[in-house]
């Protein structure tokens, strides 16, 4: 016999609905409403760059209220696919376009090659939990962790004991294959002839990688330098065993002493329209580049 009164049930329903309503979500900023009768610049692609591009869009709107920049994420792969299909003005990519992608885009746009603009620099960081004793690593060790048939599977192989990680397994956190970061990491760390080891936890966004690493003592993950949180720390990387390891920060990103220093790109299908060209010029100006440093990446202006 159930003695639960209806009033108690109603209260329970309200409590549950309040809890559900108050549990915040992970919001990805997508397209904003276009200005009435104004120009729209559509930028889609890299999740690594999405916060940066959104910040540019918001600040550009203050400068040019008649132009609306619509930003969407989805990954560098989605952006480049959109560029090939001709549905956007700029593709944001955290990796370079591959030759067959350039070929396909050229074909689809009447023989005009896509134009590449390096708009920011990133020192792609390898994150572990803050209390993980490991401090630095050589690229070849990273390759043995992430690469197919790699031999490093436990933290003890690296000579550390991680507090809170009872099973000693290295939990590899990565990105899904639409991500430019995924492609860049594979090429820079594993080399062209090696695949990722299957079984890594493939997150959809840069922020999710760091969030999961922060919550999982056994985890290691890679993500843009702008995504660091207080729960994680970055590890120094050395190009080869025996070389001094370098931490991911501004100067090493510019002079490429950090092994995973990369550029973040905009690609335009051919020559950009005047409005897009103006936007690109503003992005490369000191005003636009200040936003790059505010978000946590490195400005291209340091490059000689």
């Amino acid at each position, binding site marked *: 016999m159930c003695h639960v009164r209806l009033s108690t049930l109603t209260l329970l329903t309200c409590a549950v609905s309040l809890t559900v309503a108050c549990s915040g979500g992970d919001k990805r900023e997508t397209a904003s409403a276009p200005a009435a009768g104004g120009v729209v610049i559509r930028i889609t692609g890299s999740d690594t760059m999405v916060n940066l591009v959104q910040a540019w869009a918001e600040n550009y709107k203050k400068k040019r209220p008649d132009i609306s920049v619509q930003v969407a994420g989805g990954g560098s792969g989605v952006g480049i696919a959109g560029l090939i299909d001709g549905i956007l003005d700029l593709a944001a990519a955290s990796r370079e376009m591959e030759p067959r992608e350039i070929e396909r885009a050229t074909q689809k746009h009447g023989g005009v090659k896509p134009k590449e603009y390096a708009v920011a620099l990133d020192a792609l960081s390898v994150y572990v939990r803050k209390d993980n004793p490991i401090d630095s690593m050589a690229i070849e060790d990273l390759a043995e962790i992430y690469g197919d048939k790699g031999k490093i599977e436990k933290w003890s192989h690296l000579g550390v004991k991680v507090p809170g990680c009872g099973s000693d397994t290295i939990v590899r956190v990565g990105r*899904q294959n639409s991500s430019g970061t995924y492609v860049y990491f594979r090429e820079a760390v594993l080399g062209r002839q090696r695949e990722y080891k299957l079984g890594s936890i493939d997150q959809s966004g840069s922020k999710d990688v760091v969030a999961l690493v922060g919550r999982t003592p056994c985890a290691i993950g890679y993500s843009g330098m702008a995504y660091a949180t207080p729960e994680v720390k970055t590890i120094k990387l050395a190009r080869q065993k025996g070389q001094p390891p370098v931490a991911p920060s501004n100067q090493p990103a510019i002079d490429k002493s950090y092994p995973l220093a990369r550029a973040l790109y905009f690609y335009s299908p051919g020559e950009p329209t005047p409005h897009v060209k103006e936007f690109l010029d503003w992005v490369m100006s000191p005003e636009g580049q200040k936003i790059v440093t505010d978000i946590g990446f490195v400005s291209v202006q340091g490059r000689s």
Partner: protein
Amino acid sequence: MRQRVARGVSRWSEPVIEWTIRLCGWSAIFFVFSILFFVFREAAPALTSGLRLKEFFTSPNWRPDSTIQPQFGVVALMAGTASVTLLAMAIAVPGGLGAAIFVSEYCAPKTREGLKIVIEFLAAIPSVVWGFVGAMVLNPLIIRATGAPVGINILNGGIILALMSVPIIMSVGEDALRAVPDTYREAAVALGASRWQIVYKVLLPAAKNGLLAAVLLGVGRAVGETMAVLMATGHAVQIPHSFLDPVRTLTATIAAELGETVEGGLHYRVLFMIGSLLMLMTLAVNLTADIIVKGIRGRQDV
């Protein structure tokens, strides 16, 4: 005057209504076949443009974007779908049917309505919220309770899917039990049966078809669920060895990868093949259940 209008209205409204209803029925079949046709049509060219079927069905290596040699093996993905669905059903079927029996047979009418509202509220929660609950709330709980290296795994996904399926199983199951005439219950009481004996010996056999339908709907929801499993299972391509291993499901693979494929390319077509596979799996489950139900019905009619 009223009689003349009534006769006039019924003379041509009847066939119109009949044809409208007939159209609705036929359009349902039409839409289902259109979707089936669309999915198979997008998938079919994969068979002629380089997909090795043997690798597709027997290899656990899913590397569609490899620059060396693209691999399209779905064994690990199918293991992911199967393991999460089986765990979810192991929790949700007893849970949902139990809730259905409780609400239908053991509750006073007032509390029945209240309880139904609360449980059906669970069905109204969007699946992405469930995924969030799995990734943020269940994740640390599982690590703490089981010492697993990572908290988003089969166990996490299974619990979340079970919570999503329970309202459906409970709702349809409860309707099925309510549909059994009270004369059955009265006859059993007259013979001296206890309440559980009534449920177990009389009502469950009588409502078998409806309860099976309830379970099938729950299974269908679990197999087809995408967003929640994408976030709660860890999205890792591997054949699991324990419930604490992260896996990837067929549905999550399509959701995560279709956006970046080039329309008409091999990766795109293989994803549609996975979609076809999902539809065939669901068809097989429904067909098997139909045969079982017919078997039960046949035996009952004897």
